[in-house]
């Protein structure tokens, strides 16, 4: 209910232009607008409910979990579920997940920022063709290539290792596309001036290009991290043995092995989602920019 009170002031801002210039035309707040905001708040509460249910559920004992009348809030919170969870190799699942995400993020950022810069600023032969192949590949369903990818990883002796998840993630063309969008903004004159001053290609890239596309790299980094964390299908296909499971696979395993111990499963879900939500909230600005920049040309 406090949500209601907090949201109340927004009604006054309703028609205020973002530019902030004092606008004298006072718009009336119509009943329709009030209803819209009310409906929005209700829908927003429903959207947060699953997360609320995960978190509260993870602190409920077996009785509260299985109660016929749902326990809306755990009045007797218990850490039992988490104790059970960490009897499983949950630490290792977390470590694997973070390792996969961090590596995928690192490699994607390096490869994509170089590739995106070349596509935006280097006038090499075949540039247009390469770019259109990248764009077309983005529209294809990536799950379709999982069958041959599995065989390829087996051939490379990487199946059932974390690299089988990392490498295909780096290959996905979205990063190059995004970094091309960001690199377009580098003034060409600046690059030419650097060349006339005798800076080599590598120096131009590290000292002029890199600082200018840093916000883009930030967006791509956070985007890759979150998407890799949640890329369940790829992980499911590539990783089977216990020592390489990620947290998503761990939760799925819990669910298939003890499908009615919802308290334990919720503890797993909380462990799998809270860290990534915190990261998302911390870097939300970068993330939003990444999504919008990636869509400019579609």
């Amino acid at each position: 209910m406090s949500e209601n009170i907090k949201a109340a002031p927004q009604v006054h801002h309703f028609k205020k232009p973002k530019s902030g210039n004092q606008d004298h035309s006072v718009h009336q707040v119509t009943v329709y607008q009030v209803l819209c905001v009310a409906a929005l708040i209700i829908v927003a509460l429903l959207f947060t409910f699953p997360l609320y249910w995960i978190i509260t559920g993870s602190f409920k004992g077996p009785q509260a979990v299985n109660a016929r009348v749902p326990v809306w809030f755990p009045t007797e919170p218990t850490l039992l579920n988490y104790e059970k969870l960490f009897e499983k190799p949950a630490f290792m699942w977390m470590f694997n997940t973070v390792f996969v995400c961090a590596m995928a993020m690192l490699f994607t950022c390096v490869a994509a920022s170089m590739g995106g810069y070349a596509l935006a600023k280097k006038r090499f032969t075949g540039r247009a063709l390469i770019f259109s192949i990248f764009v077309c590949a983005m529209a294809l369903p990536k799950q379709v290539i999982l069958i041959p990818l599995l065989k390829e990883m087996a051939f490379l002796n990487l199946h059932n290792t974390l690299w089988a998840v990392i490498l295909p993630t780096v290959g996905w063309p979205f990063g190059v596309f995004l970094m091309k969008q960001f690199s377009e903004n580098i003034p060409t004159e600046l690059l030419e001036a650097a060349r006339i001053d005798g800076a080599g290609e590598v120096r131009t890239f590290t000292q002029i290009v890199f600082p200018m596309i840093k916000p883009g790299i930030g967006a791509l980094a956070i985007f890759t991290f979150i998407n890799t964390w949640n890329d369940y299908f790829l992980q499911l296909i590539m990783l089977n043995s216990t020592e390489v499971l990620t947290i998503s696979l761990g939760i799925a395993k819990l669910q298939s092995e003890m499908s009615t111990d919802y308290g334990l499963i919720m503890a797993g879900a909380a462990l799998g989602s809270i860290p990534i939500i915190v990261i998302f909230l911390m870097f939300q600005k970068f993330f939003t920019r990444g999504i919008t920049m990636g869509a400019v040309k579609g």
Partner: protein
Amino acid sequence: MKGAFLMTKAAKGGTALSRANQRRENIAGYLFMLPSLLFFVGFVIFPMGLCLFNSFFNYTMTDFSFVGLANYKELIADPIFRTALVNTIVIVLVSVPVTCVFSLWVASVIYKMHDRYTSLFRCIFYLPVVTGSVAVTVVWKWMFSPYTGILNYVFRSLGLISKNINWLGSPDYALGCIILILLTTSVGQPIVLYVSALSNVDHSLVEAAEVDGATNLQVFWKIKWPQIMPTTLYILVITTINSFQCFALIQLLTSGGPNNSTQTIMYYIYYNAFKLSRYGYGSAMGVILAAIIAVFSAMQFKLAKSDNG
């Protein structure tokens, strides 16, 4: 010829490139492209080609022999594939329009608010995406549970149902439940995109129209809608692709059941390739799915273009 080629290049780029400089650009360009090209060709293009290639083979654990179009012929005759195709199209046809309309509505309500509230709501609607498909799925499974699920309790208390329903276990409701969960995880990105598109709509045009006495609805259709058209198109395409690929929900909630009522192409590919080890058959389905998505995307581009013109 060479001269003319360089001239057009020069006209495009603004400055002329001598042959030596062009070579330099080529070398530098490809060296910068090298890491991303390596990964892209190695882990996207090559497997895609292989997928097409494998689809002409009877490819299982023990066999690898050329069968021509036999996999495709079998597909056309396969009743489960047909069910999967119909279900997939139902999912797409329901979730794409609903996602677009809902996210446009949310975006148009929140984009005019104070920045703080805009980003608060944007975050809330993005939460299910960040939470991750597995965590979202397991909590919904609990909420849908016939015995301890909160949904049955709430609906019963409201008098909407008289006895507990086994939502995911019933062919009548299962697909609807899947679509509902899919919707909650697919509106996040469109809302972000619409908010940014709506804030970029030329404000002076809107004001001019308002001065001329245009109603809100007219302002929306005549001024805002054409300007956010490219965003709408992009959203249509990504939502279509995502809905076609809906997998984790199915695998964790229903495994395609009951009685194939939630069978989708994506899940059927997984089932054939990774449960039955029928790689060739699965690849053929993958090729068909890719073709269908390409056709859908092309259609949307066409429609949107003619709408605009």
